[in-house]
């Protein structure tokens, strides 16, 4: 509005620089009033709003930052786990080969020279196999005689056995294996029944 007034007055007295100066002198208080059109209350409110918005944005930034940190950690762990358990499927398949070797050795009974040689060879192969397992942090579970542990053993059957405490593993049908602390395959076991 003040600028309009200014132009109108400037049009009325276009000739004098002096009058121009007077105009601007006269106008100055007007302009100042115009700049102060906001009341203090309004300014206070706007400041509060701006502060609130700044705080909101800051919170958002913090949250995004925290989320990023979490994501980084999770990714790191994911990567570690992927490394640690990359061979899981392959190792599981190999276990059956190991089982067959052990079964073959168990089946080879007899006293002839040939059978003895075969047994020797099988035993060595199994040892080699175990060494490879060791290298890759695969641990064998052979819980015969220890208490049944559902985290590592799979109970297949219960059997009443004289002189054995209930819930003890009395027979291991198939050995179990752990890879880097995670169960690869539970040990298949027969558990002692409580005497009725």
């Amino acid at each position: 509005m003040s600028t309009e007034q200014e132009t109108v007055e400037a049009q009325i007295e276009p000739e004098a620089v002096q009058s121009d100066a007077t105009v601007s002198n006269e106008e100055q208080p007007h302009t100042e009033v115009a700049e102060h059109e906001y009341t203090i209350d309004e300014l206070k409110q706007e400041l509060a709003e701006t502060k609130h918005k700044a705080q909101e944005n800051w919170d958002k930034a913090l949250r995004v930052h925290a989320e990023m940190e979490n994501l980084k950690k999770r990714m790191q762990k994911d990567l570690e786990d992927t490394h640690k358990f990359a061979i899981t499927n392959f190792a599981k398949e190999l276990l059956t080969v190991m089982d067959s070797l052990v079964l073959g050795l168990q089946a080879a009974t007899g006293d002839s020279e040939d059978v003895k040689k075969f047994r020797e060879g099988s035993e060595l192969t199994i040892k080699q196999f175990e060494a490879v397992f060791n290298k890759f942090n695969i641990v064998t579970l052979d819980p015969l005689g220890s208490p049944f542990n559902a985290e590592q053993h799979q109970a297949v059957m219960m059997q009443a056995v004289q002189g054995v405490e209930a819930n003890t593993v009395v027979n291991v049908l198939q050995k179990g294996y752990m890879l880097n602390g995670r169960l690869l395959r539970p040990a298949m076991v027969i558990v002692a029944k409580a005497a009725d």
Partner: protein
Amino acid sequence: MAKIIGIDLGTTNSCVAVLENGVARVIENSEGARTTPSIIAFTNDDEVLVGQSAKRQAVTNPKNTLFAIKRLIGRRFKDDIVQKDIHMVPYKIVEAENGDAWVQVHDKKMAAPEISARVLMKLKKDAEAYLR
């Protein structure tokens, strides 16, 4: 920031997932498996097992190993399905005071949702371990 997880509570198996970059991602449980058997066991030393470990000891503890509990949720004891179940499962299904089908373990009666909640608790815990 709080995360939202989705849980599929199944009759035999359950699964938990989280939305990551707009894609649902199944979270592996503490044993590294993507599904958890919906099986709950109360051992003789008052331990509660949930999931794979409960399944592994089922043979040794059939009366206190609960499975397919979801079938009982929201059913009356007198329902045909419940009556049929009674003859099929090794655990004890009993009638609650309000007529609902509950189960009894170690002389303690429990509601079916109470049992299923154990599965949800485990899945939540596993998800928390992953998202931590």
